[in-house]
């Protein structure tokens, strides 16, 4: 099958959906002729017209609210927030409005909108442009949270997100935009709430999200050489979360490491770890569930420090090994 990048997959599915459904449009800062800060919407304006691709002023609060109001009245807007750090300015509309309106209305109306936004470090953009704040969103009833790790998943999950009648926060990753993978040309949907076993293994389960899926797979390659068989699970969507796939895996491997780029403290990895511990897998655990998340520091500018701030392949290798040497109870 043809290979395209993660960014191309997103552009393709957005264009296909905009053409297929007159209610779909995209709005955001610099998404027109500039093509967006990461080039995702490159060429969309000229292909689809300014009516479908709305470049906005630098007004994150208003444009997120515009998405809410448009969704509430029958459109299906896609909002591109240029960096996920800027969600700090859009929080009222996303958290107090989008997430809650339907419930507050006693179920009437719907808010079909997708907020696409890139998170993550590794590009040298420093503390205000490198955060991974998806945990905030998972904490808010009413918001679905998606974190695709591959071009294939990006396209399929985006379609599902857009088809959903509720607000979905769709976290992309700056360093993933350029990765390539097989992606069908026609649209397809990957249901929200279905984890993907990215690699099967028997000694330990690594649950990894977004770019950490790739690092976990590399770690698994290395560990294989040492005779350690790692199963890598990519939840793909944090809310809803496919905990069953994770629990079944842990029951098989008896050990789990949860890897995420976000700051470990208060991150969603704690939720995943807690759910494993609270599940029937608890009795199968031969070691405590290990979390491996980002350090409790703002992302520094210096590239060496920046790398050290979040899990790298060798950190995952070490975490897996540590969990394996822990004595069974």
């Amino acid at each position, binding site marked *: 099958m043809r290979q395209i990048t993660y960014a191309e997959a997103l552009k393709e599915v957005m264009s296909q959906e905009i053409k297929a459904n007159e209610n779909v*449009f995209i709005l955001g800062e610099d998404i027109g002729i500039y093509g967006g800060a990461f080039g995702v919407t490159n060429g969309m304006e000229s292909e689809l017209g300014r*009516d479908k691709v709305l470049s*906005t*002023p630098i*007004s994150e*609060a*208003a*444009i*997120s*609210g*515009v*998405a*809410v*109001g*448009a*969704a*509430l*009245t*029958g*459109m299906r*807007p896609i909002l591109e927030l240029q960096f996920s750090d800027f969600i700090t300015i859009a929080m*009222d*509309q996303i958290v*107090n*409005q989008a997430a809650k*309106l*339907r*419930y*507050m*209305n*006693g*179920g*009437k*109306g719907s808010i079909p909108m997708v907020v696409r936004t890139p998170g993550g470090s590794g590009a040298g953009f420093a503390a205000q442009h490198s955060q991974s704040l998806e945990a905030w969103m998972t904490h808010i*009833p*009413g*918001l*679905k*949270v998606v974190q695709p790790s591959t071009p294939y998943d990006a396209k399929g999950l985006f379609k599902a997100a857009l088809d*959903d*009648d*509720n607000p979905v926060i769709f976290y992309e990753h700056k360093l993933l935009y350029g990765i390539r993978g097989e992606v069908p040309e026609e649209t397809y949907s990957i249901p929200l709430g279905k984890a993907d076993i990215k690699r099967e293994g028997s000694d330990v389960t690594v649950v990894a999200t977004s770019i950490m899926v790739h690092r976990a797979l590399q770690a698994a390659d290395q560990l294989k050489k040492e005779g350690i068989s790692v199963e890598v699970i990519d939840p793909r969507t944090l*809310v*809803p979360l496919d905990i069953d796939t994770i629990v079944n895996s842990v029951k098989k491997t008896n050990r789990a490491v949860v890897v995420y780029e976000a700051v470990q403290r208060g991150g969603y990895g704690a939720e995943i770890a807690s759910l494993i511990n609270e599940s029937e897998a608890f009795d199968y655990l031969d070691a405590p569930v290990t979390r491996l998340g980002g350090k409790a520091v703002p992302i520094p500018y210096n590239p060496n420090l920046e790398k050290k701030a979040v899990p790298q392949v060798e950190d995952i290798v070490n975490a897996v090994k540590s969990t394996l040497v822990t004595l069974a109870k």
Partner: protein
Amino acid sequence: MKTSCANYISEIGRDRLKDMLYQMLLIRRFEETVERLFMQGKIHGTMHLCIGQEPTAVGACAALTNEDKITSTHRGHGHCIAKGTDVPRMMAELLGKKTGHCKGKGGSMHIADLEKGNLGANGIVAGGLPIACGAALTSLKKQAGFVVVCFFGDGATNEGSFHESLNLASIWNLPVIFFCENNQYGMSGNIKEMTKIEHLSERASSYGIPGEIVDGTDVLQVYEVTAKAVERARNGEGPTLIEAKTYRWKGHSRSDARKYRAREEEQDWMNNKDGIKSFREQLLRDRAVTEQEVIEIEERVKQLLEEATEFAENSPEPSIESLEADVYA
């Protein structure tokens, strides 16, 4: 001097004038009933009464069709009633009942009635402005022809959302009317101390849109100015900022000792600027209604509120199972 209603008798007809009086009275008595029920402990939480501000709600909504939309505020009962929301179900909502507009989940600060074009009250000051812009964008995109009246208070004009929304509406020529009910105070802050300008409508110039000032106690003036703005909006000429000078007779909410303003000031507004009293007198003077009709109107209002209260009080509580319904993530 109040706008004379003589012209209006021919222009919009006696029946609508009578209906405006009816609606204003309904709002006032509704609020009085709510206050009483609150004191009796039958309504909990908080409430923000709009007594004194009836003419802005009624005058503005009189300029709208059923397809037009509004966004409302924490002080929104008047807007709801003026936009045609069913009063017994409103009352049921305030009592938190299953039969309420939001099944008891929203309460006073979150009443919405999508069928009537009421996109919802909002507990967040200025939270409705971006949403109104989004709805107006839908109108353009779907060529639906509806306009949106976005209500907010004087205090809201110092929120960033106000600025971002007016700018966005202006560059996109959105069919939205920004209707500021300047009742002179936020919760306690005197708007004269919270801004340095004489009239909030002056802010329109920052966005290259018209700004209008109206006497918010003159329902016909409110109607007229809003109708003009609605026409502009429908003709694709974009948004208008309207500032209506008005006053809330009651405290901000249940627990307000009103230490921040003088009793004389209150008395002056209540005695000399009662928009209901003056409108009734005009209608009588101009022979638009008879004394008898006024009595009948009062009676209809009274009956409706008795019905509404009975309906609300006798309605069932929402089932505990409903707690987790209406939220999808």
